[in-house]
């Protein structure tokens, strides 16, 4: 595959302001969904409330509503994904949108077409929304800055930057089970360094006002900017899991590791694997979450993943409703601007 001629850099230092300006229209409504960074507690709560309304749509005989009828959503996945792409596809279809799934590895970009040319072609086909998954951090921001003004861009994961829809479905799962965020202690275990999920989740949890966000990982998997993330860092599960309400374990992202971060998977499991023996340190009703796909026996023990405290399948269930909320809100943010 030809490398795109993108000038992608790590997110800019004034990312907060830039994100806010790019993501919201002049009325403060969502028009792109690129990053949790820069979004207010009120807006995140509005996304969760809207998603709650969509949960019941999945229980009807006909699981569709006509909100996005006549709109076209293009799923542009430059990086492989099954769960995220299928839940985005399902969400768009349940909103009655037409969906294009573009498999980049077999598309014209592999024949040398630039990303910009490809996007212009999709614009010419009158697509209304792009859902982007890309291996480079900042890809969705870049595309949002360059598309036509009435196209909404949704970030479905960019490099090790952010995965904001995953964070929001995790927030919906937590709110569903714990009712509110105040007073919660949340632990995130494992490969925080490479995890865009962790980055978005830490931002969302802090914005929504949990008591404490902990990250538990070896030094080699600790992000360099951990000090600025408003988290408590722990080196071992014994101290980190004490008294927590929610535990998220992350997948070891072997595809993003280009040097020796760990002695071995077995060693990682021994020290950081979520097992029944360490689970008892957390609160007895602590939720167990995992963004998937799971490596059983690497970051989580099978009995824990399938146990009574696990809400991993709830996360997938809520993923469709959260994505329906974000798609419809972003589309509404485009159209309401246009009429004004």
């Amino acid at each position, binding site marked *: 595959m030809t490398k795109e001629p993108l000038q992608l850099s790590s997110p800019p230092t004034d990312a907060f302001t830039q994100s806010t300006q790019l993501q919201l229209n002049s009325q403060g*409504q969502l028009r792109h969904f690129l990053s949790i960074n820069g979004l207010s507690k009120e807006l995140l709560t*509005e996304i969760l*409330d*809207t998603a*709650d*309304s969509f*949960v*019941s*749509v999945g229980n*009807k*005989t*006909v699981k*569709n*509503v*006509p*909100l996005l009828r006549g709109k076209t959503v293009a799923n542009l996945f430059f990086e492989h994904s099954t769960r995220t792409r299928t839940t985005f596809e399902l969400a768009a279809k349940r909103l009655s949108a037409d969906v294009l799934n573009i498999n980049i590895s077999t598309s014209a970009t592999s024949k040398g077409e630039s990303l910009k040319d490809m996007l212009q072609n999709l614009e010419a086909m009158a697509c209304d929304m792009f859902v982007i998954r890309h291996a480079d951090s900042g890809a969705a921001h870049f595309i949002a800055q360059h598309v036509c003004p009435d196209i909404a861009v949704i970030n479905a994961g960019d490099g090790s930057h952010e995965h904001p829809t995953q964070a929001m479905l995790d927030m919906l799962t937590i709110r569903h089970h714990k009712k509110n965020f105040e007073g919660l202690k949340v632990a995130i275990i494992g490969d925080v360094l490479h995890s865009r999920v962790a980055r978005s989740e830490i931002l969302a949890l802090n914005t929504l006002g949990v008591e404490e966000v902990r990250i538990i990982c070896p030094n080699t998997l600790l992000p360099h900017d951990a000090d600025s993330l408003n988290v408590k860092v722990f080196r071992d599960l014994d101290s980190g899991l004490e008294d927590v309400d929610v535990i998220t374990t992350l997948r070891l992202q072997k595809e993003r590791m280009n040097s020796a971060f760990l002695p071995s998977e077995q060693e990682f499991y021994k020290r950081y694997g979520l097992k029944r023996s360490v689970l008892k340190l957390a609160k007895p009703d602590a939720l167990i979450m995992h963004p998937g796909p799971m490596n059983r026996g690497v970051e989580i023990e099978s009995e824990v993943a399938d146990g009574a405290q696990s809400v991993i399948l709830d996360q997938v269930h809520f993923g469709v409703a959260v994505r329906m909320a974000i798609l*419809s*809100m972003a589309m*509404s*943010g485009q*159209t*309401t601007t246009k*009429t004004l």
Partner: protein
Amino acid sequence: MTQLSSVDQLLNKIESDLSSYIHDHNLNDPAIIGIHTGGVWVAEHLHKALDIKLPLGHLNITFYRDDYSQKGLHPRVKPSQLPFPIEDQHIILVDDVLMSGRTVRAALNELFDYGRPASVTLVTLIDLQSRQLPIQADVVGQSIKLAVNERIKLSGPDPLVIGIEQVPDIGNLNT
């Protein structure tokens, strides 16, 4: 100024007219569904007064509105609750005010996503005689025509209060 009957008079009229309608049309064991929010309040009254056996249904048509692209989406939509099968069921659909007919159009669309009812009867407390679609009610409390600077105000559920209020005439605010 347009004269409006009292809430009790309106409720009594639709209750009695609906009862005759159900009898005349052989609507056996009908179910009552109110359209959120005012229609639910009126439906609650009819449900109790006519001693309907099936539980009351709530229909929220937010996701079926045809003005979503202009007005956007309202968060915290209370989901529709239809605690009985719609298939082959006689349905009494209740709204507070029938104006353009667009709400009822959306309600019928949503209803048919749950199944194919045997029949749908439309009941409304007030018909404003300003339909934009070929939809009319079978049972009407009062049919009135409002002046440009008047609009119906309904509050509830307990007590249910209906009245006509004056709005400043500053042109068309329908956007």
